[in-house]
């Protein structure tokens, strides 16, 4: 993945002082990377139903966030499952030059290492990209590790999404 901006080594992630640029007017985007459709359905629900988050946060969720999904395990046009290089390349296309983007990773024990490697790469190359995760039942040590490697918030199941959705909206508004 070749970034537009040089590698920042992940320092000062989600920098607080944003540059004003025409790209910031692009619609904010959340890309859900999962093997099925469980999380994208949940995100669609929680972002589309203001009352769900309103009751928790006291504010509306007039989000305007574009949702898209990417399934690495699904076969690509060439007939082969998407490998990590292909996934990196696809994500590079999604992230390049777009400041208001977030990625939601479905992380299970069998893909933990592959995902954390990619999370680290994205954090280094695109430190302004917000990374979230649906983790299931990870151990405290693994949960702590993914937070250190670049996951800002994690949900064990869709029931944990409302506060994460509110945070996503705060993030998109702050851009």
């Amino acid at each position: 993945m070749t970034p537009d901006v040089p590698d920042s080594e992940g320092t000062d992630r989600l920098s607080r002082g944003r540059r004003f640029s025409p790209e910031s007017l692009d619609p904010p985007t959340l890309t859900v990377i999962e093997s099925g459709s469980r999380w994208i359905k949940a995100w669609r629900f929680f972002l589309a139903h203001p009352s769900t988050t309103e009751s928790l946060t006291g504010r509306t969720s007039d989000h305007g966030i574009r949702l898209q999904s990417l399934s690495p395990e699904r076969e690509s046009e060439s007939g082969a499952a998407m490998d990590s290089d292909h996934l990196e390349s696809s994500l590079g296309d999604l992230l390049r030059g777009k400041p208001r983007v977030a990625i939601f990773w479905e992380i299970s024990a069998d893909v933990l290492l592959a995902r954390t490697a990619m999370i680290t790469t994205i954090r280094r190359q695109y430190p302004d990209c917000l990374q979230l995760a649906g983790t299931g039942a990870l151990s405290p040590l693994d949960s702590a590790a993914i937070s250190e490697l670049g996951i800002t918030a994690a949900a064990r199941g869709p029931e944990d999404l409302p506060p994460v959705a509110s945070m996503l909206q705060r993030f998109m508004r702050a851009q």
Partner: protein
Amino acid sequence: MTSSTKIRPLARLLDTSCCPVWVIGVDGRLAYASAAMGQWLGIDPESLIGRRAISGAPESDELPDRIAAALAPPADIDSRGAAGLRLTLPTDVPAAADARGDWAQANFVRLGGLHDRAVIGVCSPSGQGIDPHAASAAFQSLTTESTALRQQLDDWRSRHVGLAAIVSAGSSAAARRLRIRMNVAASLRTHVGLFGSEGCGADSIATRIHQTSAPNELLVAVEGPLMDAELLDATLSSVVAVLSESPESTATALVHGLDDTPIEAQERLVELLTTFAGRLRLIAICGAAPKLLTEPIEQSLVDEPDVDQTTLVGLHPRIVDFLSSLSITIPRLISRTADLPLLAAAVIDARHAQGEGAGNRLSRPALDALVTYPWPGDFVEFNQSLRHAVRTSPQSVIGIEHLPLVVRTYRESGNVTATNVTISLDDTLRRYEMQLIDEAVEAAGGNRAEAARRLGISRARLLRRIDEAGQRANEQ
């Protein structure tokens, strides 16, 4: 749950499995039996703990002793590492029909060496569904994955530790003082506040402090400005779980942008730091000159129903108390001009050693350009610029033409481009902000409180912006 304190977290995980799992310690006795063992065998798993698990050699005729002996691994487990075995249970096991007097397929994995080994056994009560090789592979991959994840984390921290060494390099007084404070923080396990401008490398310094002072301690990174109290709880749940598990356990919360963290989240953090006093450490990264919320102001704002708590930012007085343990101010690069040649050499060496490009030293004009550039993005921008230079230079000497355009064309007057067009960033941002506010007020049918909610700001802030815009219009 049946286990000693030390293996509680693992035991809890295993207890959720429907498959019976047991662990035989180095003394050949059962050290752990999962909850599913009770359902499988119809006896209290606790009664098995400490019983000798050597095949054909029960310590007595008591049923738990005979069951423990039946749970023994094959005699050659030490040489094989992993093995499958059909267990034959005593006929008087008071359990389900498929266990009583029947056989069950078990798989064993040996962990550790001869003198510190443990053997884990896992079983399918019905004798179906577990392939011994798959089970062994799963166990092996469990330990392999944990090791690999730890390795990823170590690589990540090592990278930051290296960057922290570069950030603090130099012979200037500011660099020397920074190193002294970093060494003090690294030698103590105490709350630390890092204060510096954006891009100053505080992340790397924080990681270095943690890695040196408590390398094996659980660390959770928190993006403060995006938190509210509920999300902070969720993010720190792993820390709370570990700290609640044992009074000896410790953990660290690394909070980015603590001075921009909503006050309600800071209050929750204070509660956690108080609850786990001495065991939960805070490493906070703040701006160079954070706003302090004094207690009278805070109270008046809390009492004001119209103030949105999530947008109230600044450092909570109690947080300031915690950070008063040790604070480190990270100087801006522009105040360390004398250090820049050394820092540049260190960054280029590191990049070149990683095989990122041919460039391995700076030409004089390139070095002059680095020294006469103000580095508004501080160390991160410096690092990025040199990475760009190393990558684009076709030969070992990096020329000024290999530096990013903004660096090599900088003039003290501030005119970066050859054009004479002057753009006021503040005015542009104000106009853009007012445009958004106007649109929101219009969309809300003139209801300013609703417009403020839609914009995610307090009503007071929205009104202030509208007033300021009105005053500017009058002045013009």
